[in-house]
C-alpha cells in the first residue's frame, strides 16, 4: 500500500511540525471550541426539558382528555364521564377491585421565583385518592401527604427550591381558598415536581368548578392500551382523546423544544460559518508556511493525495480538540444547571428542569467540529496538492 505509506509519512511530518504553528493552530481550536460550547449548551436546554417531560411518562399509563383539546387547560371532563373512563376494560384494578387511576383537575397559581422575584404561573394539580397506586414513583420526602376534604397541599421537590412561599407550613392562596403546605413530594424527576398537588374534589369545590381536566389510568399492561382506547372511542357517551402518557408529555414539549433547537442551530450555524473562515485562515497560512517543504516533497515524488490527506488530518485533529474542549466546557458549566422556564404555553405552567449535556449532544458537537474542520481544511488541502512545484521552489 504505497499510497498509505506515503500518506502516513507526510501526515507524520506535518503533525510533528505543528508545534511551530502553535499560534495559528490555537485559532482553530478556540474558534471551533466556542461554536461547540454554545451549540451544546443551548441544545442542553431542550434536551433537559424533554427529559424532564418524558420522565413523566410510563408505557402502561394513559392520559385521557376531552376530544379536541390540545392540552389539559382546554379540556373538560364531567364526573360521569370520568367514572365511565375509570371503569373501562384494560384498566388495572387494585386488591379491592377499584380501578387504579386519577381524575385530575388543573389550576394555575401565581408564585414568585426566589432568584429574581419574577412572577410565574405554577401548576396546582388536583388528584384522586388512588394517586400513589397510579404513580408508584411518587413519594413523600418531607412532611406528610394532604388529607382530603381539607385545604392542604403538597409541594414538588423542584418547586420548593425555586419559589417563595411554598415551604412546609406556608399558606398558599388560590381563587377559592387558602391552603397549607403540609409536605414535599418527589416523582422521580419529572414535570410534576415543578408544581403542587392537592385533592381534586377539594379543589373543585373550593372554586365551584365541576369538571375535571383529565383522567390518567394505569393499564393492565402496555399492550392493553389499544383495547382501552377502542372501548372509549366506541362509547357514544364519551367524546375523548386517548394517548399513552409518554406521548402526551412528549407532545407538550414539541413546540418549545423545536424552537430552542432552531435557535441553537441558527446561532450555532452562524458561529460555525465564522469558524470555517477562521479555519480556512489557519490552514491556508499553515500551507503557506510549509510551501518549501510541500514543494520539495512533491518534487521528490509524493503524490497529491498524500498532501491533501495530511492537511485534512491536521485540520481534523485541531477541530476535534477544539470540539472536545467546547463540549467539556459546556458540560462543566451547564450540566445539571437548574432552569425554570415557561414551556411556551399557559397549558402546563412553569417547568423546572436541569440542563442535560448528554453523550448524544457531545457527539453532535464533535460531529459539527469535525465538519467545520473538514470544510476549513478542504481548499487549503487542494492548494497544497495543486501547487505548481517549480514556482513554489523558486519563490522560496
Amino acid at each position, binding site marked *: 500500500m504505497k499510497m498509505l505509506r506515503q500518506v502516513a509519512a507526510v501526515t507524520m511530518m506535518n503533525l510533528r511540525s505543528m508545534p511551530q504553528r502553535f499560534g495559528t493552530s490555537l485559532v482553530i481550536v478556540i474558534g471551533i471550541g466556542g461554536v461547540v460550547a454554545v451549540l451544546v449548551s443551548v441544545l442542553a436546554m431542550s434536551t433537559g426539558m424533554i427529559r424532564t417531560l418524558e420522565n413523566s411518562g410510563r408505557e402502561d399509563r394513559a392520559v385521557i382528555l376531552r376530544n379536541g383539546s390540545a392540552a389539559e387547560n382546554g379540556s373538560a371532563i364531567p364526573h360521569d364521564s370520568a367514572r365511565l373512563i375509570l371503569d373501562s376494560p384494560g384498566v388495572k384494578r387494585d386488591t379491592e377491585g377499584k380501578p387504579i387511576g386519577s381524575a385530575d383537575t388543573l*389550576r394555575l397559581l401565581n408564585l414568585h421565583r426566589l432568584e429574581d422575584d419574577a412572577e410565574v404561573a405554577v401548576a396546582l394539580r388536583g388528584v384522586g385518592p388512588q394517586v400513589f397506586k397510579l404513580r408508584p414513583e411518587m413519594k413523600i420526602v418531607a412532611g406528610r401527604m394532604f388529607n382530603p376534604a381539607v385545604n392542604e397541599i403538597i409541594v414538588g421537590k423542584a418547586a420548593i427550591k425555586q419559589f417563595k412561599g411554598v415551604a412546609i407550613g406556608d399558606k398558599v392562596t388560590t381563587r377559592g381558598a387558602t391552603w397549607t403546605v403540609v409536605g414535599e413530594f418527589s416523582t422521580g424527576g419529572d414535570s410534576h415536581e415543578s408544581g403542587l398537588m392537592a385533592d381534586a374534589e377539594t379543589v373543585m369545590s373550593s372554586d365551584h368548578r365541576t369538571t375535571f381536566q383529565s383522567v390518567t389510568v394505569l393499564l393492565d399492561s402496555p399492550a392493553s392500551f389499544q383495547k382501552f382506547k377502542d372501548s372509549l372511542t366506541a362509547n357514544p357517551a364519551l367524546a375523548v382523546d386517548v394517548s399513552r402518557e409518554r406521548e402526551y408529555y412528549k407532545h407538550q414539549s414539541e413546540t418549545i423544544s423545536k424552537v430552542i433547537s432552531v435557535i441553537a442551530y441558527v446561532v450555532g450555524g452562524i458561529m460555525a460559518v465564522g469558524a470555517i473562515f477562521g479555519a480556512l485562515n489557519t490552514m491556508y*497560512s499553515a500551507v503557506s508556511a510549509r510551501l518549501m517543504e510541500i514543494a520539495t516533497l512533491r518534487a521528490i515524488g509524493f503524490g497529491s493525495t498524500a498532501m491533501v490527506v495530511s492537511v485534512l488530518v491536521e485540520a481534523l485533529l485541531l477541530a476535534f480538540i477544539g470540539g472536545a474542549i467546547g463540549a467539556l466546557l459546556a458540560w462543566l458549566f451547564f450540566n445539571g444547571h437548574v432552569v*425554570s422556564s415557561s414551556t411556551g404555553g399557559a397549558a402546563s405552567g412553569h417547568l423546572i428542569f436541569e440542563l442535560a449535556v448528554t453523550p448524544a449532544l457531545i457527539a453532535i458537537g464533535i460531529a459539527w467540529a469535525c465538519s467545520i474542520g473538514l470544510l476549513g481544511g478542504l481548499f487549503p488541502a487542494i492548494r497544497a496538492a495543486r501547487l505548481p512545484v517549480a514556482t513554489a521552489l523558486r519563490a522560496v
Partner: protein
Amino acid sequence: MKYFPLIWAGLWRKRTRTIFTMLSIVVAFLLFGLLQGINQGFNHVIRDLNVDRLYVSAKTNMTDGLPIAYADRIKTVPGVRALSHWTYFGGYFQDARNPLPAFATEPEGLFAVYRDLKIKPEYLEAMKKTRTGVLIGQSLADKYHWKIGDRIPVGTSIWTNKQGSNTWYFDVVGTFDTSSVGAGFPSFYINYAFFQEATALGGGIVHYYLVGVTDPAKATEVAKHIDALFANSTNETRTQTESELAQMQLKQIGDINFIVNAIVGAVLFTLLFLTANTMMQSVRERTSELAVLKTLGFSDTKVLVLVLIEALLLCLFAALAGLALAGSVFPMLKPIFGHFRMPMIVVSMGAGMALLLALVSGLPPAWRARQLNIVDALAGR
C-alpha cells in the same frame, strides 16, 4: 489623511488572509447584531408600550377570571376613558391543529381602548346588530380566505352550547388592521353577550378587563385605585400596564439578557484570538518593511500608530458590514415582532466592541512594531 493609502495597502498584503479574517468578523457581528438587536428590541418594545392601557386580571391567576359584574364598578373609577374585556374562547377551525386566537369581547369598548387598531365604523355597527357576528384580524382572515358574509364553524373542547354541541357558528361581519401589533395578538372576536347566552357552562366571567386611561401619567394611580376596589373580596384583582405585563411574560421565559450576553461573549472571545493572530502574523511578516519605514524616518510611535490604525480599519469596517447585514434581516422579523428596526444603541455597542477588539488584538503586534530595532531587523535577526 495622507497615511491612509499606506495603511490600506498594508491590510491587503495577503488578500486571502485579510478577506477570511474580515469575513469572520462580519459573521461575528452579524450574530451580535441579531442577538443584541432582539434583546434590546424587547426592552425597547416594552418601554415603548402603551402606558395608556391597563390590564385587570385575577390576582391568583389570570385563568381564574373575574366576574362580569366588575365592569360597572371599574367604569366609575376616575381616569378611565374606555373599558372592554377579553374572555378566552379558544377553539379551532376544522381541526384541533388549527387553533384560533378567539376571544369574547365587548367590541365597541375594545376598539376604543385600542385606538391604533383601525376598523371601519360600519363593521362595528354590523357587529352590534349581529349577535353571532365575528370580527377578524386581516392577516388571520387572509390565512383562511374568510370574507365578509362567510359563516365559520368553530370547534371547541371547553364550551358546549345550549344545544349540546361543541361546534359554534359565527358570521364574518368585518375585519380590522393588525399591522400595528405583533403575531399572537387576539384577532378573532365574538360578541360576549352572545357567548354568555349560548354557553351551557362557565358563564359570567372575563379573563381580562381592558382599561383605557385618559392620562398616561396617572396610569399607576388608576391601577392602584382599581385594585383597591376589589381588595379583600373573593376575587381580588391585579392591574398592570401593558409594559409591566409584557415584562412579566418575558421574565417567565428566562433571563434572556444573560443568555444573549453569554453567547455574544463567547463569540467575541474566540474572535479576539483570530484577529490578534492575524495581526501578529501580519506584523511578523513585515518586520523588514517596518524597519525600512523607521529608516526613512518614521518614529517608533508613528509605526505603532500605523499598525493600530490598520487593526482598527480591519475590525471597524468588517464589524459595520456585519451590523448592516443584521439590520437588513430585521424587517423580515416583522411578522413576529411587529415594527422592528435595529436599535441605534446596538450599532454603537457594536462599534464600541469593534474598537475594543481592534485595540486588544492590535496592541501586542503594534507594540512589537514599536520596539523593533532597525539594525537587527534589517540584518534579519
